[in-house]
């Protein structure tokens, strides 16, 4: 039966792809070492001033002091991460909620759209001092700024995803006499999920930017405070070590979103899908 040809999405021959993976890893390591070596050499040989660009070794030493021996960095690290995450989650609730309202109600969409455009074209960072004036010096203003900055991509992606619901599928649901609620839950929302998740990935890195900006404006704890303080004191190795930790934080948040994505949008991940089919089939035969 020609139409019964299945492609179970199996990965290509294991060994060959393993070997390719190892060779890629070696290439990456080589490039990394070369860049670090060039950086170290340019500082050691005085091509650039030590004051402006600390050597990798100096950064590692500073990092060790901050993260291990004094452990001074961690409260700041977690405060910033908390602010970014809280801002992001509120952004998801508000941005997602506003998008759902806009998607389901054309009048609401029409009335809300000028404000959404205004929100998009205004450089939202500029609102940071105002927010601080409103909310004071605690974590709340940073969370609010993170939320405002990440709101838009989450809102616009959710709205786009919901509005691009397949018209035929929608009609099929209607022919089955599905309620609006069922159409939303069973068709629109899951269908929009890939686009929503893409918005969330952009959103979470923007939330981190928002938290740091808020800390720049005014704060006593947070990675932004730390970097600012070290930079003013010209302790550049320490400032770089903080920057490095922010990269790590960004990666943690990014991978958290990737994991969430592979669970929420599992049908876009071929390997997970094949695995899920097998699991469901196994569970069924066990029960029977």
């Amino acid at each position, binding site marked *: *039966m*020609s*139409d*019964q*040809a*299945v*492609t*179970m*999405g199996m990965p290509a021959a294991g060994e060959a792809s393993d070997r390719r993976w190892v060779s890629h890893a070696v290439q990456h390591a080589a490039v990394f070492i070369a860049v670090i070596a060039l950086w170290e050499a340019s500082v050691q040989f005085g091509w650039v001033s030590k004051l402006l660009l600390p050597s990798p070794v100096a950064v590692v030493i500073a990092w060790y002091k901050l993260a291990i021996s004094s452990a001074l960095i961690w409260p700041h690290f977690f405060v910033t991460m908390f602010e970014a995450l809280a801002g992001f989650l509120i952004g998801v609730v508000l941005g997602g909620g506003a998008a759902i309202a806009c998607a389901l109600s054309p009048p609401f969409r029409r009335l809300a759209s000028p404000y959404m455009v205004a929100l998009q074209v205004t450089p939202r960072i500029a609102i940071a001092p105002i927010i601080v004036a409103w909310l004071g010096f605690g974590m709340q203003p940073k969370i609010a700024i993170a939320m405002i900055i990440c709101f838009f991509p989450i809102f616009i992606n959710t709205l786009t995803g919901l509005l691009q619901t*397949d018209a*035929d*599928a929608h*009609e*099929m*649901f*209607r*022919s*089955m*006499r*599905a309620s609006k609620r*069922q159409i939303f839950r*069973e*068709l629109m929302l*899951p*269908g929009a999920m890939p686009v929503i998740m893409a918005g969330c990935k952009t959103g979470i890195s923007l939330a981190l930017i928002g938290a740091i900006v808020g800390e720049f404006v005014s704060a006593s704890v947070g990675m932004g405070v730390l970097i600012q303080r070290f930079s003013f004191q010209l302790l550049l190795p320490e400032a770089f070590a903080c920057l490095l930790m922010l990269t790590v934080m960004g990666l943690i948040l990014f991978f958290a979103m990737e994991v969430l994505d592979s669970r929420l949008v*599992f*049908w876009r991940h*071929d390997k997970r*899908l*094949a695995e*899920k*089919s*097998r699991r*469901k*089939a196994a569970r*069924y035969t066990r029960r029977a």
Partner: protein
Amino acid sequence: MSSVAIEQSGPKAVPRDVVVRADGVEKTFDGGVVALEGASFDVHKGEFVSVLGPSGCGKSTLLRLVAGLIERTGGSLTAYGTEVTAPRADIAMMFQRPTLLPWKTALDNVLLPTLIERRPTKEDRERAIGLLRLTGLTDFEFAYPQHLSGGMQQRVALARLLNAGADLLLLDEPFGALDEFTRERLNLELLRIQREIHATIMFVTHNIAEAVFLSDKVLVMTPRPGRLAAEIDVPFARPRAIELTATPEFNALVLKIRDILGSRS
């Protein structure tokens, strides 16, 4: 005494059950496009009726009207004796695209009409698996749509259509996007399934031979504005084999319809 005898004698005296009765059904879209102009026809219980015509002649519009998905702008349209005003449980529709949900397995896709009514039970699942078997998909219950070929996806959509439990099935070019071989086989299977479940079918196509081969009656439509040009009865006995398409009678009928379409478009 004699009147009773007359009523019981001869097949004509017992009226066949009318499933769909369209009387001057019209559809003008908001923009002023007349998609369908005064269509009148009957569909009887257990009949296989094709709606045939070139693209844009209003076939999908006609089917969506019967499905209650869009409102007519004129005429009367009843199914099982009551006016069609909205989608209903005794009518189910299938589209050219499979419109499967990629996050549901074949089985869960088939169960969708059940899910919309209530939480599916074990019996519902067994019945859905039975329907997948009926449409030739044994062992693919737990596959996801993207792991199925186009033909298999339409088989899932067909099983889902049957799971709606409707007596009147509306199929809008259901196999039109598939290759010739797959389409022919699925057409034959559709006939077999119809024999098994005694469904009434309205089937949209733009392929004359396909319409003649499948149908008891062909509604021939012409475009601009979309209208019903002729209603052709197809007398060939059932079950039909593909060899029928090589007979002179079959080809004469195809030519006759081609003439109708050619002279009026």
